């Protein structure tokens, strides 16, 4: 009889443990691996304390498990709130890839020199073409040079404070708009569909970076988060 009771109790415990696991699975959906591990650790700690308290208040282990899980509330709501404050898997991936890119550029002197030399050469050449009267080709090179300068030169700029970063980002957006205006001239509106398609990934990256900046203290920002 006692074996049966113990078995039933065990089954109850397993069900409730799986309740906690189900709660945790839903609460950690789309969170990065580190964030999910952090959530699991803190919620399991909390659950254990709540369960111990319920048992010391006279509840059976099965009831205590249910009380502890119920006290956590709705897992979907918690997931929504966690995603607002902890890194999601997409954000963690962007952070990793950005760090890799910055390291790849900044740790190789020859690559750094090449990436600075390319836009500078393009800008010089565009100036020479403008002076030589070939304004069409000069304009194309100017636009290309500016784009390359923003894309490759940014990691090398002395941008280490949020204020400088904000100024840089505004300049970057203005430069993008100018580039588009220079490329399409008076037909800019006709080509706006192309702009929408090509700029969408950039917007997504900017949006994700802004979200990451809110979630990580400034002292821990890698260089590319400033840009």
């Amino acid at each position, binding site marked *: 009889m006692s074996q049966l009771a113990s078995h039933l109790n065990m089954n109850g415990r397993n069900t409730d443990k799986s309740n906690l696991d189900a709660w945790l699975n839903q609460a950690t959906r789309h969170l990065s691996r580190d964030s999910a591990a952090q959530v699991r650790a803190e919620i399991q700690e909390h659950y254990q304390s709540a369960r111990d308290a319920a048992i010391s208040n006279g509840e059976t282990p099965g009831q205590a498990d249910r009380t502890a899980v119920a006290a956590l509330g709705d897992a979907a709501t*918690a997931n929504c709130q966690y995603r607002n*404050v902890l890194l999601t898997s997409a954000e963690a991936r962007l952070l990793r890839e950005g760090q890799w890119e910055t390291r790849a550029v900044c740790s190789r002197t020859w690559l750094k020199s090449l990436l600075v030399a390319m836009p500078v050469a393009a800008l010089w050449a565009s100036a020479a073409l403008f002076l030589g009267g070939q304004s069409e080709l000069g304009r194309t090179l100017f636009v290309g040079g500016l784009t390359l300068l923003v894309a490759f030169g940014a990691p090398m700029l002395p941008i280490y404070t949020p204020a400088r970063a904000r100024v840089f980002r505004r300049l970057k957006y203005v430069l993008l708009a100018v580039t588009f205006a220079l490329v399409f001239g008076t037909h800019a509106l006709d080509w706006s569909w192309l702009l929408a398609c090509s700029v969408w990934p950039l917007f997504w990256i900017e949006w994700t970076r802004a979200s990451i900046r809110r979630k990580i203290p400034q002292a821990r920002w890698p260089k590319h988060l400033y840009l």
Partner: protein
Amino acid sequence: MNFKGTLPTLILEALAHEPCHGYRIAQQIKERSRGVLDFKEGTLYPALHKLENEGLVESYEGVEKGRPRRYYRITKSGRKVLSKDRAEWRQLSQAVTVILGEA
């Protein structure tokens, strides 16, 4: 009772006296409000992480009854925000009391 938006202030208040772990913070809020402020405990940690991201609290590893626990303590800027929040709350509650008293 719905106390949406005031949870961060209540957490800072709970941490103003001594560092605590999440479960203790939740219990303090419930006990000090004599059970009036009852909230879902799963929402406590996102609020704690937000406060940590803003530099108002900091966390460290501790041990309680042989179990590793994450403790939270209020920072200097957290205390400043708490005293500002207290003043704002007093002003707000006085204003609401006046209005409800007149009704």
